[in-house]
C-alpha cells in the first residue's frame, strides 16, 4: 500500500467537499417524486393477478349476545370463496395493543357497533359485499353502557355545579363489559399538601368530544399465502412488529412464518396503531390459498379504527393574589369504549401531564380510563395531553380573569423551566422554554383588522361566501395556549428501535443502505434516515430499504418518537460502521491516524487532510452493522402518589389564535394561528414546519369542527359529508418560530416534533372565541349554538 504523497495541514474541509442533504438540511423526501406521479404504492393500490377481495361483516349493534350465525346462503353466492367466523380462527381469538382483550372475530358477544363478526372473500368486492349481507346473525340485544362515570358506578357530574348528582344504578359489579370490570386504569397523583389554602380558587368542568384521525388513505393491505404454510402481509400500518406478534398469535403460526412489509401509508395519526384488516386478510388468504386484498371505504374506516378518547374533566385551581399557583385538583374520565387499545397510556399521559407545563407545589389528580359500549378509543396525535389542555388552559384564563391579571403573564409566572419539578416529582433535566414560547408569541405582530370604511372580502369573514355577514356582528378575539407532551414510551417501558446500516461500493461510488422497520406514514422518517446516514458516513447516496420485519422492531410510529428513537438507532449503527471503516483505512494506510472523519465520500483527518476516497479504501468490502438502540430508562410511577421518573423527554409548543366570531350566527373564522415550538434540533427544518402546520390544523379541527357523534353507542356521522375536517378555506395563515435548545440526552439534541402543535392550537382557538363572546365554552368542539346561546 502506498502512503499518501502529501500531508496538507490546512482546510481539509474544502478539499473534501461537504456532504449535502445531511442533518439540518432541507433534504427532499425520497418518495416525493413517486407520490406526485401516482406511482407510489399505497396499501390500497396493491394488486396481483389472482387476488380475491375480502370484506368484513360488522355488528350493527353496540352490545348484544350472538345467538347464532348462518353462513350457508352467503357461501352459496357464485364468486364467493370463503366465509369465516370466530370458529375459523386457528390460534387465539384475541388481540390488543396493551391488553389482549379484543376478539379477532366476535365470539358470543359484540361490545361495540362495528365489531367484526364475519369475513367474506370473493372475486369482486361487490360480490363480497352482497354475500356479506346474506350472512344471518341473530342478536339478543342488550342495553349498551354509554356513560363512563356510570360504567364505574361513580356519581355523574351535572356539568354546571359542583355538587354530585345522583349515583347511577349501574355499578362495576352489576354491569361489567369485561370480566375484570369496567375500569381499565386509574392513575393517582398526590403531591404536596392534601388540603392547601389559596387566596383565589376557580373551578370548572370541561368536555372534549370524540375526534377521528381521518387519515385520507383508508385501511388496506394484501395478504399472500406462502409456500411454507405461512403468509406475507403487505399493510399500511404504524408498527410492523406489534402487528406481527398479534397476527401470529391469532393464526397460531410462529414469527418466522408471518412476514410483514409496510405498504404505502396514507396518513396515520395514531389510527393505525391497532390491527384493522391484518388478521382478517391473512385468515382469508390461508383458507383460500389465494392472495386477498382488503380495503375499507370511508364509512367502514370510521368503524375500523379507534378514535381519540372523549374526556370529561373537572378542575380546581388555587393561586396566591400574586398569581402563583398553590394547588391544582383534577379528575379526568377517558371513555375508552369497548376495548382497551392504548387507554392505559392515554390515562398515563392525561394524568401525569393533566395540569399543563406549570410548576405547582400541591397536585391531586385522578385520571380514569373506562370500558363502555361506545366505539373503542385509542391513539391519536397528542393523546391524553390534547384533551387535558382544553381543561387546564381554560382554567388558566379563568384564573387570570379572577386575579385581574394578563393571561400570558399568569402563565409565565408559573411556567415550567429547566430544573422544575413535575407533578410526578420528576426534575425537568433539559430546556423547557415555556415562558419564552409565550413571550415570543406575544411579541409577534397581530394581523390587521378588517379595513375601516372598505367592505371586507366575504372570503375573510365567518360564513365566507355563504354571505351570512358583511362584518356586522363580527367580533375579533385573541387567545393563547401552551401545551406539552412526553416523547417516546414512558413509565418504564423498554422502548427501543433497530437499525441496520450497510456501506459498500456500487458502480465505483460509496453507497449506504439503511434498513429499519420503523413505519413511514407521511411524516418523513425516510428522509431523516437518509440525512443521518449522510452526515455520519459522508456519503450522498443513501438507499432506504423497504420497511419490513426482516430487521428488528423499530417500535411504533407514535409518541413523536421516531426521529429520536429510529434516528438514534440509525446514528448508532452508522457510528459502528464508521469505526470499522476507520480500522480498515488505517490497515490500508499501514499506520494509525487520529481525528479521522468521513466527508464528501472521503476519509479525512483534521491534521493530515484527505487520506483517501472511501470507495478505494472500501474496495470489495461490505460493512454492515445492526444496532438495537434505547433511550435512557424511565420508571413506572408508584400507584399511590404517582411519583417517578416517568418520561424520557418533554416537548413544548404554544399558540396564539386570532379568531373572528359572528356572535349572532355563531360562525367562526380563524384569522391567524401563530405557533412557537422548541424542537431541540431541527433535523429537517422544512419538515418540522410541515409537522407544525399539519398538527395545528388537527387541533383547530377538534376545537371548532370535528366530532364523531355517538348516541346510544352508535356513530351518527361516519362520512366526510357529516364528519368535517378543515379544508383549505378553514385553515388560516400561520406564523411559526422554531426554537432549538438542545436536549443533552437526545441524539443531536433533538426533541420530538409531531404532537405538541396539536395540543395547544385548539385551546388557543377556544380562548380566542371566549374572549370575543364572553361565553364560558366548556365543551369542544365549539358549536354555533354554544356561541349564540340558543
Amino acid at each position: 500500500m502506498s502512503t499518501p504523497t502529501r500531508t496538507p495541514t490546512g482546510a481539509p474541509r474544502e478539499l473534501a467537499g461537504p456532504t449535502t442533504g445531511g442533518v439540518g438540511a432541507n433534504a427532499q423526501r425520497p418518495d416525493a417524486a413517486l407520490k406526485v406521479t401516482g406511482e407510489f404504492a399505497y396499501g390500497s393500490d396493491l394488486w396481483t393477478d389472482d387476488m380475491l377481495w375480502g370484506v368484513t361483516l360488522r355488528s350493527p349493534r353496540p352490545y348484544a349476545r350472538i345467538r347464532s350465525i348462518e353462513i350457508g346462503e352467503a357461501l352459496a353466492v357464485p364468486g364467493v370463496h370463503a366465509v369465516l367466523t370466530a370458529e375459523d380462527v386457528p390460534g387465539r381469538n384475541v388481540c390488543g395493543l396493551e391488553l389482549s382483550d379484543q376478539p379477532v372475530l366476535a365470539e358470543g358477544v359484540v361490545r361495540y357497533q362495528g365489531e367484526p363478526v364475519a369475513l367474506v372473500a370473493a372475486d369482486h368486492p361487490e360480490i363480497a359485499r352482497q354475500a356479506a349481507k346474506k350472512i344471518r346473525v341473530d342478536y339478543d340485544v342488550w342495553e349498551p353502557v354509554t356513560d363512563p362515570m356510570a360504567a364505574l358506578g361513580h356519581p355523574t357530574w351535572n356539568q354546571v355545579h359542583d355538587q354530585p348528582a345522583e349515583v347511577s344504578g349501574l355499578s362495576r359489579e352489576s354491569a361489567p363489559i369485561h370480566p375484570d370490570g369496567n375500569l381499565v386504569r386509574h392513575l393517582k397523583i398526590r403531591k404536596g399538601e392534601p388540603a392547601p389554602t389559596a387566596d383565589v380558587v376557580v373551578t370548572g368542568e370541561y368536555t372534549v368530544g370524540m375526534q377521528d384521525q381521518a387519515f385520507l388513505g383508508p385501511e388496506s393491505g394484501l395478504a399472500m399465502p406462502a409456500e411454507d404454510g405461512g403468509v406475507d402481509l403487505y399493510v399500511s400500518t404504524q408498527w410492523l412488529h406489534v402487528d406481527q406478534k398479534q397476527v401470529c398469535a391469532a393464526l397460531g403460526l410462529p414469527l418466522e412464518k408471518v412476514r410483514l412489509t409496510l405498504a404505502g401509508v396514507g396518513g396515520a395519526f395514531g389510527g393505525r396503531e391497532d390491527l384493522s384488516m391484518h388478521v382478517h386478510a391473512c385468515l382469508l388468504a390461508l383458507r383460500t390459498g389465494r392472495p386477498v386484498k382488503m380495503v375499507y371505504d370511508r364509512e367502514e374506516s370510521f368503524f375500523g379504527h379507534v378514535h381519540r378518547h372523549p374526556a370529561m374533566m373537572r378542575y380546581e385551581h388555587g393561586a396566591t393574589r400574586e398569581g402563583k399557583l398553590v394547588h391544582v385538583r383534577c379528575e379526568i374520565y377517558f371513555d375508552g369504549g369497548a376495548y382497551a387499545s392504548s387507554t392505559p397510556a392515554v390515562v398515563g399521559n392525561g394524568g401525569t401531564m393533566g395540569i399543563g407545563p406549570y410548576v405547582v407545589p400541591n397536585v391531586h389528580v385522578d385520571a380514569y380510563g373506562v370500558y363502555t359500549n361506545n366505539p373503542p378509543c385509542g391513539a391519536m396525535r397528542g393523546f391524553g395531553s390534547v384533551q387535558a389542555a382544553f381543561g387546564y388552559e381554560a382554567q388558566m384564563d379563568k384564573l387570570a380573569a379572577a386575579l385581574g391579571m394578563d393571561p400570558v403573564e399568569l402563565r409565565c409566572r408559573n411556567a415550567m423551566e429547566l430544573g422544575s419539578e413535575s407533578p410526578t416529582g420528576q426534575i425537568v433535566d433539559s430546556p423547557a422554554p415555556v415562558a419564552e414560547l409565550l413571550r415570543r408569541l406575544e411579541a409577534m405582530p397581530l394581523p390587521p383588522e378588517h379595513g375601516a370604511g372598505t367592505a371586507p372580502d366575504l372570503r375573510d369573514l365567518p360564513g365566507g361566501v355563504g354571505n351570512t355577514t358583511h362584518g356586522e356582528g363580527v367580533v375579533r378575539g385573541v387567545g393563547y395556549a401552551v401545551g406539552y407532551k412526553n416523547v417516546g414510551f414512558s413509565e418504564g417501558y423498554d422502548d427501543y428501535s433497530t437499525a441496520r446500516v450497510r456501506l459498500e461500493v456500487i458502480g465505483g461510488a460509496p453507497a449506504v443502505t439503511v434498513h429499519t422497520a420503523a413505519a413511514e406514514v407521511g411524516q418523513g422518517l425516510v428522509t431523516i434516515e437518509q440525512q443521518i446516514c449522510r452526515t455520519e458516513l459522508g456519503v450522498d447516496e443513501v438507499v432506504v430499504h423497504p420497511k419490513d420485519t426482516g430487521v428488528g422492531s423499530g417500535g411504533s410510529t407514535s409518541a413523536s418518537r421516531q426521529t429520536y428513537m429510529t434516528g438514534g438507532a440509525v446514528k448508532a449503527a452508522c457510528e459502528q460502521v464508521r469505526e470499522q471503516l476507520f480500522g480498515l483505512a488505517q490497515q490500508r494506510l499501514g499506520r494509525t491516524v487520529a481525528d479521522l472523519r468521513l466527508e464528501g465520500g472521503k476519509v479525512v483527518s483534521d491534521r493530515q487532510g484527505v487520506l483517501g476516497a472511501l470507495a478505494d479504501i472500501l474496495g470489495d468490502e461490505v460493512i454492515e452493522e445492526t444496532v438495537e438502540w434505547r433511550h435512557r430508562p424511565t420508571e413506572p410511577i408508584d400507584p399511590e402518589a404517582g411519583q417517578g421518573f416517568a418520561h424520557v423527554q418533554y416537548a413544548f409548543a404554544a399558540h396564539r389564535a386570532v379568531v373572528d366570531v359572528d356572535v349572532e350566527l355563531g360562525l367562526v373564522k380563524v384569522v391567524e394561528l401563530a405557533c412557537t415550538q422548541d424542537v431541540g434540533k431541527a433535523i429537517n427544518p422544512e419538515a418540522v414546519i410541515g409537522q407544525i402546520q399539519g398538527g395545528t390544523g388537527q387541533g383547530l379541527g377538534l376545537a371548532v369542527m370535528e366530532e364523531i357523534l355517538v348516541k346510544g353507542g352508535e356513530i351518527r356521522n361516519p362520512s366526510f359529508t357529516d364528519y368535517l375536517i378543515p379544508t383549505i378555506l378553514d385553515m388560516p395563515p400561520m406564523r411559526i418560530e422554531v426554537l432549538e435548545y438542545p436536549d443533552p440526552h437526545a441524539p443531536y439534541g433533538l426533541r420530538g416534533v409531531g404532537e405538541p402543535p396539536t395540543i395547544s392550537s385548539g385551546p388557543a382557538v377556544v380562548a380566542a372565541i371566549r374572549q370575543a363572546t364572553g361565553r364560558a365554552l366548556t365543551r369542544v368542539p365549539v358549536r354555533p349554538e354554544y356561541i349564540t346561546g340558543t
Partner: protein
Amino acid sequence: MRIQMTVNGVDRTADDVWEGESLLYVLRERMGLPGSKNACEQGECGSCTVYLDEVPVCSCLVAAGQGRGRDVRTVEGLADGPDLHPVQQAFVEAGAVQCGFCTPGLLVQTHALLATSQRPSDAEIREALAGNLCRCTGYEKILDAVRLAADRMAVPEAGP
C-alpha cells in the same frame, strides 16, 4: 359491459365492467392506473380528481359508463415525458407532499387552476382547492407549491 375511452392519450378498453362501477374503480382496478385515490367515494375529498374532457371531476362520482368514448387524463398523464410537470415539481420542492394521498387530486385541480388563471391570488387558490382535503399539511405548503408553480409557469423559459 365494455367501455372504451382515451386515457392519458391512449385508447383503452375495459371488459366485464359492472353497472355500478365508477370511473375511479375502472381506472384503478381495470386499467392499472391507481394514481387517482379513493378516500371517500362521496365527492367530498377530491382525492380522485381527474380530467374528463378537460374538466376536473371527482371520478368516484362518475359512473364508468359515462366515460365511454371520452377523454380522461389522470395524475399519471400530467408529466410530458420523464420530467415532472412544473406543478408536480413545485409540490415536491415546496414540501407539499407528506403522506401524499391527497396529492394526485390536488395536482390535477392545481393544473386546471393554472390553465385558466396565470397568477391566482391566495383567495382564488383557496377557492379552487376547497374541495380537496388534506389531513397532513395544514395546506400552507400546498399554497406555497401553487404559488411556486404559478410563478414558474407564468415566466417563459429563457432560451439557450
